[in-house]
């Protein structure tokens, strides 16, 4: 247990100490939020969907949680290259504990990042419709963070060096984001896009957050939760398995 705690704490300390990184990682969500949020607002309103900023804010929050948690999992690659991974792998602690400590640490960092973006979007004018449901939205944020931290660890355990990184970004992380309905409503899409968006776990996370914060959703929030829990369990198992197979 104490091993999980110390590795969790390590991730947090590293996050808090990387000031430049915190600021940098807020840049992209702010672009989406402010430029798209205000830029697409008139069109969105004319289409009869209401205020775009309100709509896109949960999506941007979800995006920052997604990026942050995947990156923390890929931090494994850095630890591999800079050697700290070895230090944990020869310790008399089961790999499962190490993996859980890392994943929880990464997920916690991602949730903090998500909360920062929430605050920024509220400053920009985002207003949750149901304040009572905000803790439930936080629950969805945690679920997203755990799902994608586990995915990050699974990928990070399987890559030997950073060469695969761009590949992962362009063919996995960006599609997960774009297909999640973070930026457009998942209603009235063509059959192909409908099918693909339904395969994207982030779609259920963002839908759940939207259901809690705005009271509008494409799926049933309970379905959202069930899908996230199932995918999370599978990815945690895969991540733990891949992590246990690491050889240096």
């Amino acid at each position, binding site marked *: 247990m104490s091993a999980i705690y110390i590795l969790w704490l390590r991730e947090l300390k590293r996050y808090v100490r990387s000031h430049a990184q915190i600021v940098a990682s807020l840049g992209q969500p702010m672009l989406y939020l402010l430029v798209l949020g205000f830029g697409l607002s008139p069109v969105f309103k004319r289409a009869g969907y209401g205020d775009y900023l309100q709509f896109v804010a949960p999506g941007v929050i979800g995006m920052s949680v997604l990026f942050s948690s995947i990156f923390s999992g890929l931090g494994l690659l850095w630890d591999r290259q800079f050697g700290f991974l070895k230090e944990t*792998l020869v*310790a008399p602690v089961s790999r499962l504990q190490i993996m859980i400590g890392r994943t929880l640490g990464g997920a916690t960092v991602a949730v903090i990042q998500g909360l920062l973006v929430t605050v920024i979007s509220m400053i920009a004018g985002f207003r949750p419709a149901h304040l009572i449901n905000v803790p439930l939205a936080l629950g969805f944020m945690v679920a997203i963070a755990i799902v994608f931290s586990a995915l990050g660890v699974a990928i990070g355990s399987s890559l030997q060096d950073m060469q695969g990184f761009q590949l992962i970004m362009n063919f996995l992380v960006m599609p997960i984001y774009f297909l999640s309905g973070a930026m457009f409503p998942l209603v009235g899409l063509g059959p192909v896009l409908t099918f693909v968006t339904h395969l994207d776990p982030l779609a259920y996370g963002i839908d759940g957050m939207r259901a809690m914060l705005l009271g509008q959703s494409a799926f049933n929030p309970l379905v959202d939760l069930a899908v996230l829990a199932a995918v999370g369990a599978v990815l945690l198992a895969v991540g733990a398995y891949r992590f246990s197979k690491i*050889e240096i």
Partner: protein
Amino acid sequence: MICVRNLAKSFGSFTAVNDVSFEVAEGEIFAFLGPNGAGKTTTIKMLTTLLHPTSGSIQLDGLDPSTHQNEARKRFGIVFQDPSLDGDLTAWENMEVHGVLYHVPRKVGRARSEELLKLFELWDRRNEQVKKFSGGMKRRLEIARGFLHTPKILFLDEPTLGLDPQSRNQLWSHVKRVNESERVTVFLTTHYMDEADRVAHRIGVIDHGKLIAQGTPQAIKEQTGTASLEDAFLALTGSTIRDESASPTDQIRQFAKMWSGGRR
């Protein structure tokens, strides 16, 4: 304490370690010598559960590290050849993490950390992030960390690489001290033959993945008819220089240096 039988490890068609057998008795200091790329680090990785052998068997204190990983890990400590510190954490935090991972009781861990950081003259800088340390200081911290828990077997993979003579002396006298007072078995590699001659009870020489000589320093010198261990080593392994190609790790370190300006 360490018993290795017909150990082999291949990566694809390349055989890094080829049919190596040796034994290290409890309380013995064993130096594993060889030119670059001879198979020293690969052997240590197999002994310390980081790699699975292709064939052959290993026993550490009677345990097979590939089947009883955690039990085996409890018995050894290791100082790696390349860095394994967390640069974002302070020296003290690096010690703390190590203590927790090795189940060192908190109080004992704190006392020992203080003692070791003082011994290796890092105490005044304990609250600084490790990434700000010089190469020698990082090395000293790795060594201090390796001594934090009291293992039965201590692996030292080129521990003196990049250390000044003062720190080298400090290290070897500490190694001898724990070896004598706590009967810690030591398995070390080094490129400094005088160190091996001075510290080790027995020596094994590995080249091209094969163990080509083993015995006391005296016996090896007699066997080759040479006066110093350095000459004996050259007589055994020849005088051609070995090149290792850069591993992905080296490549990425360069890449990282280029881009991050030493972020870690």
